[in-house]
């Protein structure tokens, strides 16, 4: 009985995702064969991409590098933008959560800026910074900041009154209450925000690199589209997806740790 359930688990873990992948490959092959002549088939995609996958860190030229090397450039860019997003977003969230005056004044602006697309921020970044690199980082920061802001504000508003009463009964100073009671209490919410922000930061990288032509997995994607090597578009899409998935899982683990603490 237990032997059987172990096998069922393995089937669930490995066979079913394989089945899903098989179906997608089949649809892809049929689409390529039947009505999208320019769409490379899975086999052709592998053939054209294998050099980039098998030598992932090779640098053959500025625009011709292994896929993980490009990914690394993108990750660096994301790390910069994301750091700025968190360093600005967390304090902003705290202010929104703590001060009714601040919330009344700035919440409407936050709500208006929140849904703005990265494609809209990038030109503004170029106008402000005059260079593509800081403009890209600016775009990533502006787009990925909001989940951190909103979740931090929510976390601060959700600090139980009981904890605040403890702080008051002990006469903790304002900074001490913030550091010892409100911050630890809001931390699980903040980490949810951090995780969502990281997801968006990675989402934005493609747009940012496409428009600035910066070397990276998004820049490579756009360049290969222009060079008519469509196989590499698919390679990039898969890479972006896998890296995004890995980042999300990684942040999920960190988040879990703080939830149980």
């Amino acid at each position, binding site marked *: 009985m237990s032997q059987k359930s172990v096998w069922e688990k393995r089937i669930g873990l490995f066979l079913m995702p394989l089945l899903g992948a098989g179906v997608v490959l089949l649809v892809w092959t049929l689409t390529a064969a039947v009505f999208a002549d320019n769409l490379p088939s899975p086999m052709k995609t592998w053939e054209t991409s294998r050099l980039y996958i098998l030598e992932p860190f090779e640098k053959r030229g500025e625009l011709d590098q292994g896929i993980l090397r490009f990914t690394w450039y993108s990750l660096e860019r994301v790390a910069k933008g994301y750091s700025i997003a968190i360093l600005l977003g967390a304090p902003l969230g705290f202010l929104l959560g703590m001060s009714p005056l601040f919330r009344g004044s700035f919440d409407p602006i936050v709500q208006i800026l929140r849904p703005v697309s990265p494609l809209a921020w990038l030109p503004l970044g170029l106008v402000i910074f005059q260079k593509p690199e800081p403009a890209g980082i600016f775009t990533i920061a502006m787009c990925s900041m909001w989940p951190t802001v909103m979740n931090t504000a929510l976390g601060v508003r959700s600090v139980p*009154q*009981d*904890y605040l*009463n*403890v702080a*008051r*009964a*002990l*006469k*903790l100073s304002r900074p*001490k209450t913030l550091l*010892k*009671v409100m911050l*630890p*209490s809001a*931390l699980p919410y903040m980490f949810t925000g951090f995780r969502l922000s990281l997801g968006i930061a990675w989402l934005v990288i493609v747009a940012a690199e496409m428009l600035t032509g910066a070397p990276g997995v998004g820049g490579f994607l756009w360049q290969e589209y222009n060079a008519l090597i469509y196989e590499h578009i698919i390679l990039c899409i898969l890479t972006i997806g896998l890296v995004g998935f890995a980042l999300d899982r990684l942040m999920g683990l960190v988040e879990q740790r703080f939830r149980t*603490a």
Partner: protein
Amino acid sequence: MPILELDNACKSFGSTKVLANVSLSVEPGEFVAIVGFSGAGKSTLMSLLSGLAMPDTGAALYKGKHITGPGPERGVVFQNYSLLPWLTAFENVRLSVDQVFKAWSLQKRNDHVERYLNMVGLSHARDRRPAQLSGGMRQRVALARALATEPEVLLMDEPLGALDALTRATLQDELERISRLAGKTIVLVTNDVDEAILLADRIIPLSAGPSATLGPATEVSIARPRDRKRLNHEPLFRHIRVSVVEYLLDTKRTKQAATKRPPKSGLLVPAMEPSV
């Protein structure tokens, strides 16, 4: 001179008058129990004494001076423990010790925390977080946290309300012991008349709300240490019990007749209270 006083204090939340003309006078070293229905305004009364809330009219006084906020001389044990879940038992107590005895060395503060954890019998669980402690153990940590600041007055807001009957009885016995040892002024708010008789020098009933007010006090002149097993056979115990319960039920009947509301739950039944 009384150490704690309420002088005709009134407190409303919105349009509901919770407390009406509450007057109370607690002498130094006295153990006063305030007994009332759930939702009658006991926690509100406690907030006035702790300084977490101010009376709308009337006054709350500590040693004759107006209470303007919480202070370390008045230690509070909250109804729902209110331990910080990310800190261990030790760290929860240390937080308050750090705050009150800032001038002490780290070693002295640590020893102090250790001593109070030992007093409530939790030395073995010092490094556990609240989530890893039972309800009774959490309440002990909360008690240690309040006692460790060495307040002159200990304010306990239904400290055992959230516990099961057996744990409750054990902790009541322990509170009896600790209160005797500590010799502090204690105000206990409870909905358990037996608990009040076991622990207090004086029992004051809080009439049913809204517009709750304090009724006539009853002295508990039963010798200490009090033993719950013997207490049941004490004629005075039964007398006090009956008179307090009857007073409370009377106020409830009068209130209901006046407001024509459907009968609500009786004593010892937990219900929602306006949290302050």
